[in-house]
């Protein structure tokens, strides 16, 4: 349900970025958002919010593309680094609960593609 509020930030940010462009672009073609595997974002809900929020803006009709980042960690005990099988966040090598999450919490606007 928080997808709507997150998508509001996404659309606001994307529109804000292209505001700076001179001359103003004709339309937005695509918006790419990066989401880590630990973020609990339901893509259907994000897409639904996106379609609602871009209505009557220069981004109407644009594609929302999601890039997924897997959950990775590094063990403080043995130095192991690699993919984690969420929800298990123990070290794959030594089994200790001493893993720092190194990726998987990302949530950012990567790029906006426009038609000049």
């Amino acid at each position: 349900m928080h997808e709507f509020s997150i998508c509001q930030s996404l659309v606001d940010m994307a529109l804000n970025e292209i505001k700076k462009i001179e001359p103003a672009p004709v339309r937005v073609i695509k918006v790419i958002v990066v989401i880590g595997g630990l973020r609990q974002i339901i893509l259907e809900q994000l897409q639904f919010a996106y379609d609602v929020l871009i209505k009557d803006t220069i981004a109407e009709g644009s594609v929302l593309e999601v890039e997924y980042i897997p959950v990775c960690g590094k063990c403080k005990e043995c130095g192991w680094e690699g993919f984690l099988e969420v929800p298990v966040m123990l070290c794959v090598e030594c089994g200790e609960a001493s893993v720092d999450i190194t990726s998987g919490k990302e949530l950012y606007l990567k790029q906006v593609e426009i038609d000049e």
Partner: protein
Amino acid sequence: MNEKTIKVYKDLMGANAEWAQKTRDLLKKKKVVMLNLIGSPGSGKTVLLERLAKDCSDSLSFSVLEGDVETTKDAERLQKLDILASQLLTGGACHLEAKLVHYALKDLPLDELDIVFVENVGNLVCPAEFDIGEEAKIAVLSVTEGEEKPSKYPLLFNEASAVVLTKTDLLPHLNYKIGVCMEAIKDVNGSIPVFQVDALNGNGVEQWHEWIKERVRAC
């Protein structure tokens, strides 16, 4: 058609993170601890706070920001025990955001407080996504909810600094395997304490209360 790509690379939580940082700065200046209680509706968050008020009001000065429901019922329950509790108006949102919490916090008599609890909206997903500037997130889980919750909501349990497992007085009536739940918690976050409490009757709450007081001392 002339296509062009604009690289942005900006965090979508950036604005929320700025408000959360303002809150952390304010709490630090005022030497106040803020704990963010996150759990399902009915998991026992308010009873936990009522118990703290009953057992520790002479040694701890605390306030509550009530975000769980739009009615003032929870806040009134706490006010009956002489706890200053303010109701946050979330407009039916599924989580609290940092800006709202910041303004509500500024309205509290922070100079007189050791600790502020935020009772977040009853939900294990959305509140875990939003940093509100708390010192620690506390996952509140009742034994009536099944043992697998920590595996189903890994973000919350991974980010939490403690788990309070509530309603342990009901265990004799349930087929609940505490060991399974403890394993699930250990899988997502091996280093956090789990407090097993029956806050309704006040059994097993001492360690939880001691943990809170330790955080106040360290602040």
